[in-house]
């Protein structure tokens, strides 16, 4: 059971890290609480399903196409619906909620509410420490690790990354220093949604695909970013692993744990907020006045 907990926690933690990092990034740079973030994860899974079922593309190519399509869609949504109301914080919030609901309903109308399955990209299992791990789960772990490493590289070793970090730190000063904060925000949206889409296509074969699959990760991601500290990438990754393990322990060790895993994650969030409201690695944002 210990090995089960170890592997499940690691894989789920990796997926959560992909989602939470993007969520955190977009909040840090554009101050957008993107409720539709995990809806893009759901869309990517549906896109992969459609491409595999109706066009007969190969798995790898279909996955790449899904990520690209969802990222393009997110940029269009950002330009059309979020950008015009950026000055009104509450309007942005509602717009993202409305977008999430629209995607959910569109998928519900197009594909129906039943569960859809996607075949594994890699079949077979590897036995490690006496527990058998399907290759697909290892693949998720590898993809998550590679994506996070890429994001780290982009953020810390490129000019774009420097601009993103500067904008997150102080939007006005970054603007005054000649950075095109508008374009930086667009790039951040693209990176953030691409991460969510990568998470979506990589978990689609393991989990089932249905129009409501975005709600559960949304709540988990919220507790992760609060635990790690809103806007902190490092905090999001560590928070994701912590929550991934806590959920795995709840599911394997407690009777009826599957029902309680959400409540446990949320309780951790409440405790963190009480003890250390800025989270583990929170950048205590200067009070915006």
């Amino acid at each position, binding site marked *: 059971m210990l090995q089960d907990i170890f592997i499940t926690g690691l894989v789920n933690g990796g997926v959560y890290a992909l989602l939470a990092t993007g969520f955190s990034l977009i909040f840090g740079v554009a101050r957008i609480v993107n409720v539709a973030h995990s809806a893009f994860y759901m869309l990517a899974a549906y896109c992969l399903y459609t491409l595999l079922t109706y066009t007969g593309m190969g798995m790898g190519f279909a996955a790449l196409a899904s990520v690209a399509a969802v990222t393009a869609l997110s940029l269009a949504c950002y330009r059309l*619906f979020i950008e015009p*109301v950026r000055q009104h914080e509450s309007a942005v919030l*509602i717009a993202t909620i409305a*977008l999430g*609901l*629209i995607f959910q309903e569109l998928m519900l109308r197009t594909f129906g509410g039943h569960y859809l399955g996607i075949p594994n990209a890699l079949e077979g299992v590897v036995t490690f420490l006496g527990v058998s791990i399907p290759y697909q789960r290892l693949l998720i772990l590898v993809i998550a690790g590679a994506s996070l490493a890429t994001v780290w590289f982009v953020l810390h070793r490129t000019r774009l990354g420097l601009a993103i970090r500067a904008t997150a730190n102080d939007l006005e000063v970054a603007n005054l220093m000649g950075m095109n904060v508008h374009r930086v925000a667009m790039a951040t949206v693209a990176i953030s949604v691409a991460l969510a889409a990568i998470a979506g296509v990589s978990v689609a074969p393991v989990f089932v695909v249905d129009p409501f699959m975005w709600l559960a990760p949304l709540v988990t991601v*919220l507790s992760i970013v609060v635990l790690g500290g809103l806007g902190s990438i490092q905090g999001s990754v560590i928070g994701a692993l912590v929550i991934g393990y806590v959920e795995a322990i709840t599911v394997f060790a407690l009777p009826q744990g599957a029902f309680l895993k959400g*409540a446990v994650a949320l309780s951790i969030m409440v405790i963190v*907020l009480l003890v250390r409201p800025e989270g583990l690695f929170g950048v205590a944002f200067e009070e915006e006045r």
Partner: protein
Amino acid sequence: MLVLPSRTLAAAWVASVVLLPLVLPDPYVLRVAAMTCIFAAFAASWDLLAGYAGQVNFGQALFFGAGAYSSALLSLRLGISSWIAVCIGALIATATGLCVGYLCLRLRGSYLSLATLAFPLILIGALFAFPDFSGGELGVTGLQPLATSRIGNYYIAAAAMLALVFGLWAFADSRFGLILHAIRDDELAARASGIDTTRYKLAVFGISAAAAGIAGALYAHFMRGAGPSTLETALSFQVVIWGVFGGLATIYGPVTAVFVLYPLTEWLGSFSAFGELRLLIFAIVVLLVLLFMPRGLTPWVRDRIETRCPRCKQRNPAWHETCRVCGAPMHAKRAEPKPPLAAGARHSPR
């Protein structure tokens, strides 16, 4: 009294709420209207907390559900009479509000929104963990309604809604509301001016939760039961959408939004072709309205039918040539210069 078009609209609205059962005693219309009233009171309670005090609560359904479940369980398990159960339900919701307010005292902005989102989900988890007591996923049913006739039930919902909405409105217009504005705009400055912000924030959580709890308890008795849907994230989001769609920090805005959106979605749902698309249409309408009226529906309409006198700042009907209070010509305001740095424009990309 009726010199301003907005006041005429408000009076016409009250009259139509009161006269509706006499004009249209159709059971379906009355049912939708009663639900609209209950949700209007609920939306107004959220606006006091989020719009005035700036505590953007993403879990307002917690107070609604606490009121609904506690009054339903008290009536069913302990056999307490409905009216007393509604009152106790409101008290329990108030206590819940104070607890949440206390837990969230140190949080602000997005952190507060995210934290409050969690509380109703934790309560749902707790209710599901004791299905024998709470009814589990099906909820509890079999409550006695407050009145025996349909019209009686409607009037109870309408009277409670009018009392709550006008109560909250008067409250938000008082000195207390002014202090809430101050806390929202700059908590530090408010504290520096000698306002005990902690006490005020706790109080506004309590009051808002009490109003939401009354709405929830009425809902439970109207629906003759309470289920997990009263605590769902969807309901919390719904009230946020109503609030922002109608216009924040107005009280009448969210009420207007409910009276526009709730019957509209119900009516669309009655067509079989649209029934399944109801939520989709709802979301698209909200998105489009926000694009054209980002401050919400009622401020936009109010700006169209009323203008502010450039000299004495009193509101006038838009068609007046001179101010009704000080006699200054109204159209000089066209030359009014825009402030170079409008509030909220600070963080916009240029």
